[in-house]
């Protein structure tokens, strides 16, 4: 069963993959902000990760609370094989469909500015 991934979800999964054992809310959020320049809210990260977990793409684990968080626990995420497959699939789909088009895309963008 192929479950599709939205583009925000793709960003999240790549960040989780990149961060490895350090992938929890704050780190994921910062990574995406750093790489994309998009400001996103902790609530949005949480909700989307929760959804990915329900779809079976990631697993999560709670650690013990630390004082900087007022004793509240963190939720660490790991990419599971099915998530990795889905991410690869949706990225490949995008790559296939965009093959050879990037140059034209750049040109179209310039024309758009000029008009």
């Amino acid at each position, binding site marked *: 069963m192929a479950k599709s991934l939205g583009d925000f979800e793709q960003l999240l999964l790549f960040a989780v993959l990149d961060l490895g054992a350090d992938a929890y809310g704050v780190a994921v*959020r910062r990574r995406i902000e750093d790489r994309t320049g998009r400001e996103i809210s*902790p609530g*949005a990260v*949480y909700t*989307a990760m929760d959804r990915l977990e329900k779809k079976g793409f990631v697993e999560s684990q709670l650690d013990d*609370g630390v004082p*900087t*968080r007022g004793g*509240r*626990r963190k939720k660490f995420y790991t990419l599971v094989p099915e998530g990795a497959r889905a991410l690869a699939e949706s990225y490949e789909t995008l790559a296939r469909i965009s093959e050879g088009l990037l140059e034209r895309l750049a040109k179209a963008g310039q024309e758009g500015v000029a008009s």
Partner: protein
Amino acid sequence: MRPPLVPRTLLRWLLPRHAREIVVGDMAEEFAAMERAVGSRRARAWYHRMALRSLIACWTVRLPAPRLPRFGLDRSLSDVRYALRSMQRSPGLTALVTLTLALSIGANSAVFSLANSVMFRAVPGVESPDELVVVQFENPNGYGTGASWPTFLDLQRKASEFSGLTTAARGSVDLRPEHGAPARARALGVAPSYFSVFGVKPLFGRLPTPSELDPANPQRVVAISERLWGTLFGNDPGVIGQSLWVNRETFSIVGVVDDFRGALRRGDEDVWYPLGFYLDVRYPGEGLSLNDRSQRMLFEVYGRLAEGAEVRTAEAQLRATMAAVVEAFPEQAGIHEEYRPTAYSGIGLPTGARDSTARTMGLLAVVVGIVLLIACANIASLLIARGLSLRGDTAVRRASGASVARIVREHLMYTVVLAVPGATLGLFVGSGLLSLLARLPGGPSMLQEVPPLDGTVLAFTFGATMLAALAAGLLPAALAPRIDVRSALSGASGQRSPLARKLRSGLTVVQVALSLSLLIGATLLLRTLRTLSHAELGFDPTAVSVFSIDPGHQGYDEEEVDAFFDQLLADLEDQPGTIAAGLSLLRPFGGGSFRLLLQREDQDDSERVTSYAQWVTPGYFDALGQRLTAGRMFTREELDLPAGKGGSAVIINLTLARRLFGDGRAVGEVVPQLQRDARVQEVVGVVTDARHRSLKVSEAMLYLPFKERWRESAVVVVKSSKPHRILVEDTRSAVARLNGGIPVASAERLQSLVERATGDERLFATLLTLMAVLAASLAAIGLYGVVANEVAGRTQEFGIRIALGARHGQLVHTVLLDGLRLGGVGVLLGWMAAGALGTLLESRLFGVAPLDAPTFLGAAVVFLVLTVLATMGPARAIDAVDPVDALRREGT
């Protein structure tokens, strides 16, 4: 530093439970990092922004829809999402509605909760206070007397309308614990049923049992209040079993009472002992008997109504029983033919304040209602404007197949969702305001603690605003089926709904009118306060301190009491710094008074003069600065005549002299007393007026030599150059040198007593001012909204006019005139409303007329300025109108 309180709390309350810990934790961690990196201000801004967005994300991105049945609910959820999106799309409107709701819900519930707790405070430590009634023995003029113990027993025997009837006799006493200093406190001799009728519980130890309290065989047991346990015994748990001297009687402490301090408003009861000892405690050695039907010492009778019983039927039953008692014992109980049992509910209120309290509550309810109306009008007006601006949108949806029902549902859901942040914020505003109000000067004297926000009031306020909002939300929904799709889509400006426009203008006029009337009312009250604080007191309270001292509790006889006070007064006068020292029986502005009815033989009943009596030494007049205007002061001889043997000489004030003797000479005249057994009293002097009970009126006063008094206590009045605190210490040691067992009670500056006399007025004026400011801001918001909408709707018209050569200034002028027309009509209506409010307020006003012209004019000017300001903002948008753009749009 911790993240900002409000968004943090909102997150904790509003996030879905499973997300709460993780998201709040992430936010806290990031906030700390941000604070280090970019500083606290930007971190806080970030936190606010992210909290809001997190909330939206958690509730909109994916609501738990899939498992629900496929009818109704999931569609409502999509409506909720639609509503949330709409709110994001028009942040200005969302902010205005949120602000209006938060302010009105917050202020209304705070004011009402406060009023509620001041006026109808639940009596602490009492079970179901609403079932309790106070029974007083009153004549038709409202004067009261007490009942005797045998009479009470008769009443109790036949009180089937009550589940219990009880009584007590009170008085202040001197307390002496086994260890430690003596103290003055309010103590009651209580009937066996006292604790059970009130439903009082012990904090620890136990309550005296009914058999221990039985007057036929009373035991020496006593219960004390939690307060007294703290102040007198330092919260020592070993207090049970210790003995306690109450005046000259000793009792064993059996328990500390939980929370209860008596049923009167400012619960002040500290000690409860068996009624059987009351006469020994209060009137030792006078040979009085509790079983004597002529000893009417029971002024406090309380009853708990039986289930389903009414106050009036219960009262009727008491009166019937009393009639039988009067018939059986005409000599002793005959007085009750005139002074009949009268039952009152509202037990937390002070005697005699029940009528005025009801009036105050009524007035507050009117004010709160007005503010609520304004808020409702505001929200309705904003939503109508939104509905109109969405006509194009609605038309598209209709054209693409959305049913009318769905559009109506969306509008309603939008309204409901829109109210959530405002209502939530209203809670914060309400509780914040409440703690602020309770700390105001004048507030704390009435409140023992900050009351909680009243849930019922909160729910009512919220419900009322919601109803108004829903009604307003329905209007655009109702317009939906009638929208002409083509014209709406073409964006033509000509056919804006004239009905909605009129409705909005009407609402604005009503708002202006109502808030103007509140502003006028508040100003009148503030001016009253100003006049009162500058009122001619007739005396100078600065540097005057008053103390209560009661050597009678030490078993002194009258001669010893007189000697004690002579010595004390001499000591005080000798102290350095003392300017004057005197004695009086009653405390000025202390609430107590002794009333006399005077009538000359040649006067008829309608000319009766009411006067108040006070017992003084000459030093009293000196301390207060009252001057003799005619005649002389009491002579040494007159002052020293023992009680009951003299008293032929009296001094009266100017008011009484004028009322009794006109402008003629008062000195040498005889005061005509109504009582048959009254002695002949001759006026020897006339003094200047001094207000004694109320700041508002100068009352007739009659002064007698102090030793004529009927009680063995006195109020010591000292004017001294020493600071109050030091004076208190010096007076304490002066008293202690004479007798270490006599406490100096209720030491206060006279100035505070005077200020307290205006406490109620001040609180009321503060509340009204607050409401008026709130109302004016709401009206300004409403006006702004109407004008802004008007300008936006006429963009094309303005563009064309500019193209045709009109100058911006002219257009601004037009808009301003429109605004002023609304404001002007509002002011005129507001004057009428204020006239009505003024008559309601009349009894509270002093030194200012209810239709005071400067106040009315001033408030109108304030509102017209407000109108201009509210109009100028939107009118500036005219500058941005581009005629080319406007013309192009007209062409499409």
